[in-house]
């Protein structure tokens, strides 16, 4: 893993200004300013309902902000992995092929790359298997490989290992470490402090729709700066 550095001069990969999102008659997310730059992973922590998924979907452009702006340059490639993998009702290979084609790769390039992708990520034997017959852990790993296949600059993940066993979780984290080493910026929502620690980047703590603190992971777990951070780690942070 690369060293913990976020180049404050580099232009952000994704940023938002004065972001506000209300739903159901309440402000669910309020982020005056957030710049995500290339560098070590960002783990988004926070209690249920804090607005973590909302933040990711806004940053990824799946929902439009009601107030404020999300700034994402079109040449910055983004991908997202959801909590529950959504695979197409096709073979494992066809799922990867679909993502490559959606990213604009030509037929010949895809035909050349697909076998490499499949074997590189351990799907050579199951290439022709219907993707939805894979186990939950395998499905999530395939969803991650599909997201990584286009070598995104930013990869958002929303609790990708929430329903996986330790081995499947480990497989996912290994792939994330590889992607990180290859320069993909990882932004991951997780409820597992251990996962945030293992990814070894920074922690972004959300509480009640606001960023309570943003600290390097080692520091966060040793001595959080905010009262919310202390409460979260002691298990006392409730909405």
């Amino acid at each position, binding site marked *: 893993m690369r060293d913990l550095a976020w180049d404050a001069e580099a232009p952000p990969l994704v940023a938002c200004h004065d972001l506000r999102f209300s739903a159901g008659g309440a402000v669910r997310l309020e982020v005056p300013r957030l710049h995500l730059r290339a560098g070590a992973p960002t783990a988004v922590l926070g209690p249920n309902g804090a607005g973590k998924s909302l933040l990711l*979907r806004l940053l*990824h*452009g*799946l929902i439009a902000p009601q107030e404020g702006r999300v700034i994402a340059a079109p040449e910055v490639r*983004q*991908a*997202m992995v*959801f909590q529950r993998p*959504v695979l*197409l*009702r*096709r*073979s494992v290979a066809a799922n990867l092929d*679909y*993502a490559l084609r*959606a*990213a604009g790769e030509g037929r010949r390039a895809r035909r050349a790359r697909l076998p490499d992708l499949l074997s590189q990520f351990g799907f050579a034997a199951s290439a022709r298997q*219907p993707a*939805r*017959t894979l186990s939950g852990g395998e499905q999530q790993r395939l969803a991650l490989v599909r997201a990584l296949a286009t070598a995104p600059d930013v990869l958002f993940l929303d609790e990708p290992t929430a329903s996986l066993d330790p081995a499947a979780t480990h497989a996912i984290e290994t792939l994330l470490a590889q992607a990180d080493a290859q320069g993909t910026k990882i932004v991951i929502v997780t409820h597992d402090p251990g996962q945030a620690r293992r990814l070894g980047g920074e922690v972004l703590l959300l509480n009640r729709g606001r960023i309570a603190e943003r600290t390097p992971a080692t520091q966060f777990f040793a001595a959080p700066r905010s009262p919310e951070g202390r409460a979260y780690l002691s298990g006392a942070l409730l909405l």
Partner: protein
Amino acid sequence: MQGFAESFASAAMLILTGDPALWEIVALSLRVSLTAVAIAALIGFPLGAALAVGRFPGRGAAIVCVNALMGLPPVVVGLAVYLMLSASGPLGVLQLLYTPAAMIAAQAVLVTPIVAALTRSAVEGLAAEYDEQLRSLGIGRLGAIPTLLWEARPALATAALAGFGRAIAEVGAVLIVGGNINHATRVMTTTIALETSKGNLHLALALGALLILLALAVNAAVAALGARPREALHA
């Protein structure tokens, strides 16, 4: 009038000996209804998908209309197509009235709403499931339609079969626009109606039996698609 048992026996003979008059009628029925379903699918699949994912004014009303048209009485469709194709109608110059083409048109009108409505409900469910994932992959709302149609293929096959079942069994529309002309526009249902009224029961019975077999086959195919959702989905 023949005895009942006698009629059954000669009906069975007609089927088993492959009576040419019988098979001519069956072949025309299949040709007309299969072509009508193919046309209905060509229109109904994309139309249903567009209704499922589109966001345009009048979408709700369009869905209500398509659903209501599912129950169109065949004689009304026959009448409407007749008016279009009759010599004084807007399409009269085509001189299609009393040809298989007119029958195909009528059945296509009858079946398209069924295919479109069933497609819409199937695609709508899938669209909700796939929406964020497809947009994340950079695929827009309209660009998603071919993907969603392919993902919904078992449901689309069921929709087409349901449409075929309706087309092959209806009598009103093909009778009005086809005219039940011997060796030209006579199909199974119109022949049954005519031969029964003439008291010529053995041909009517033979055709009726074949119709029931066809209906059974269609329903078995629908059941097979429904019973193996997992395999069918991945087929």
